[in-house]
């Protein structure tokens, strides 16, 4: 099945200054962005950044306290039913019924979208096959592994062939093999079916690998939004080089700061240095030549490209893991108080 009609202006989602306040807590603060039809758009941020609240507002589960948004061309406040009938949602928590079989879970969801009779049976079979669960059709959802359960959730969210699919942290809690399987499925949904996908994640590699564009969210605000490549390129010192000499450089760090394209140098002790450079491979070549010139031995040399973690650090002033550790115990998916 192909996705339904796309909006006239080519935008699947348009968010204008949307906010959500829970008491004194401003969970989402005046957020504005647009998602084009057919793209995979990612919200990247730690637990507690406001991703789930934002996705819940866009899927009509939580009313905003300010601003507006249209999803599939329909206003989320004025016409929530039209929005609901055009979106598929795979929430962060597993919401398939553990006491129902895979086929029953999909079939009952189909009925909630008005799909009945033979169409329901056919669609259920198609979706179970699409997510490789055709052999587990009559198995209770409670007996599935985490990865299988997530695939069932994706199938269920696709039952009415939605224009836009929302996935809230689709791989959280999954093992590496299951993560890969879900990633493949997400890629397939876009490549084969041209659907718009909106996903939230706190995994850098997930956003980097899957998303056409990524919005970095921190403390309820979007602090950067672009393609992963452009975001990484926007960070000064796009490459990180670690080098160790023997013996040490005669003047230490100043000998390295003179090299072209080097942005900064930090001594790590024991004649080792961390260098930020705009041109990683070229700087590495210059380090080899410097060692030869000064008759020093190069004990180690490694070049790393900028990751989205560096981008996050650059735009927020703190690392993703660092804030995730402090926010994780509170969780972000608590009803009514989600951030």
């Amino acid at each position, binding site marked *: 099945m192909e996705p339904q009609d796309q909006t006239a202006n080519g935008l699947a989602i348009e968010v204008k200054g949307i906010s959500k306040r829970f008491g004194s807590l401003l969970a989402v603060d005046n957020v504005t962005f647009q998602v084009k039809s057919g793209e995979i758009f990612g919200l990247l941020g730690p637990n507690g950044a406001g991703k789930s609240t934002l996705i819940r507002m866009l899927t009509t*589960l939580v009313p905003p306290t300010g601003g507006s948004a249209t999803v599939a061309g329909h206003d989320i406040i004025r016409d929530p039913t039209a929005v609901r009938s055009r979106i598929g*949602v795979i929430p962060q928590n597993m919401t398939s019924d553990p006491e129902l079989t895979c086929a029953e879970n999909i079939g009952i*969801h189909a009925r*909630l979208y008005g799909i009945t009779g033979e169409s329901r049976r056919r669609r259920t079979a198609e979706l179970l096959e699409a997510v490789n669960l055709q052999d587990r059709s009559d198995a209770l959802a409670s007996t599935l592994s985490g990865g299988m359960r997530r695939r069932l959730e994706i199938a269920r969210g696709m039952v009415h062939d939605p224009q836009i699919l929302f996935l809230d942290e689709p791989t959280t809690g999954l093992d590496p093999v299951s993560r890969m399987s879900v990633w493949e499925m997400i890629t397939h949904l876009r490549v084969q079916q041209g659907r718009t996908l909106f996903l939230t994640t706190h995994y850098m590699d997930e956003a980097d690998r899957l998303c056409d564009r990524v919005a970095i969210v921190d403390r309820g605000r979007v602090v950067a939004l672009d393609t992963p490549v452009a975001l990484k390129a926007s960070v000064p010192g796009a490459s990180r080089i670690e080098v160790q000499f023997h013996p040490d450089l005669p003047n230490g760090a100043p000998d390295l700061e003179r090299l072209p394209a080097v942005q900064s140098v930090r001594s790590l002790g024991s004649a080792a240095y961390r260098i930020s450079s705009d041109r990683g491979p070229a700087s590495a070549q210059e380090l080899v030549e410097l060692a030869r010139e000064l008759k020093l031995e190069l004990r180690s040399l490694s070049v790393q490209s900028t990751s989205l973690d560096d981008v996050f650090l650059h735009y927020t002033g703190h690392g993703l893991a660092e804030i995730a550790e402090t926010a994780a115990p509170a969780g972000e998916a608590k*009803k009514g108080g989600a951030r």
Partner: protein
Amino acid sequence: MNRALALVERDMRKFRRSPALLFAALVLPLVQLIILGNAFGGNIKNVELGVVNLDHGPQSVTVVERVRAVGANARTFLPTDYVDEGTAVSDLRKGVVGGVLIIPQHYSRDLLEQHRPHLVLVTDNTDRSVAGAVGSQMADLVASINAPPVAPRETPQAILDVVEVYPYVDYIKYLLPGSVTLAIFVTAMIGGGLLFIDDKSRGLHEGYMVTPITKWELILGFNLSGVIKAVLSGGTVLVLGAVVAQVPDFFQPARLLNMALMVVLTSVALIGMMFFIMARINDPLVPRAIFGVLNTLLFFPSGAVYPVAGFPKWLRVMSQADPFTYAVHGFRTLLLKDVGITAIGTDVFALTLTSVVVLGGATLLFRRTL
């Protein structure tokens, strides 16, 4: 409507796969019916009665013989002779005997001299039922001793004849209406309360709320599936209970129809009430914490186990506000009196009014958003 039926289909599939809910809803009321129904309301028998005869005259021997006659026939009490009253009363305190009859010295002489001698019955009033039964039997016995050997030609006293309009109603039949109502309530607590909140806290409702299902369809779906389960368990206890309690002419079609109406009305009212209570609750511990209290507050003031007429005034007021009262009264009227629907008009009205109020309130409280 079709979307509401999707929720009903979901619940029925789960209900059929795991009939534990039906089992749980049936066990408590049926066990209660069989155990309490047989434990209460029977005639008290075999109470050990200590007899201390300090007289030994011919009139006291008559008393002892009549006591032994009761022991051999009605068996309300079984006499045991004691030599002195101190030992007998001590045994009464220890629970060895349930009462002590003391025939005082000079009883025979005083009786013949018409000095109105006193027989003394010492009872253990920590058990009022046993003390009452022994006292009543002894009063009859003393009345028979006092009766003149030849009846006077004209009896000056008025005589009361008690006529019972229905066949003998033992306690198990009296308890059955409460058991049926309890079965419906237990289903409402588990199926309409516990599972509802558990599903909500597990995020299952979130999965429904992102679909186009409307608020009305959600309310209709949740309540309809609850009512179907409550009708199944209430109907099962009604039929099984009527067979166990041997309710006469239970399977008359018109009677069954009236009782089916009562089962449906009670189910709608109690499921609606549970939905009203649970509309804003998210914590799965809350229903578990309040169900015991709720059961006591609704079941016992309803007259299910003891007549409302015996309650203090404040409890009678509480009883009038309790939907259980009308369910129990309606079932009791239909089961034990075999009268038509008009006899339960007040009960039908009260249960309908309860349904309208609680479902209206629940609709106002229920939120379609998180």
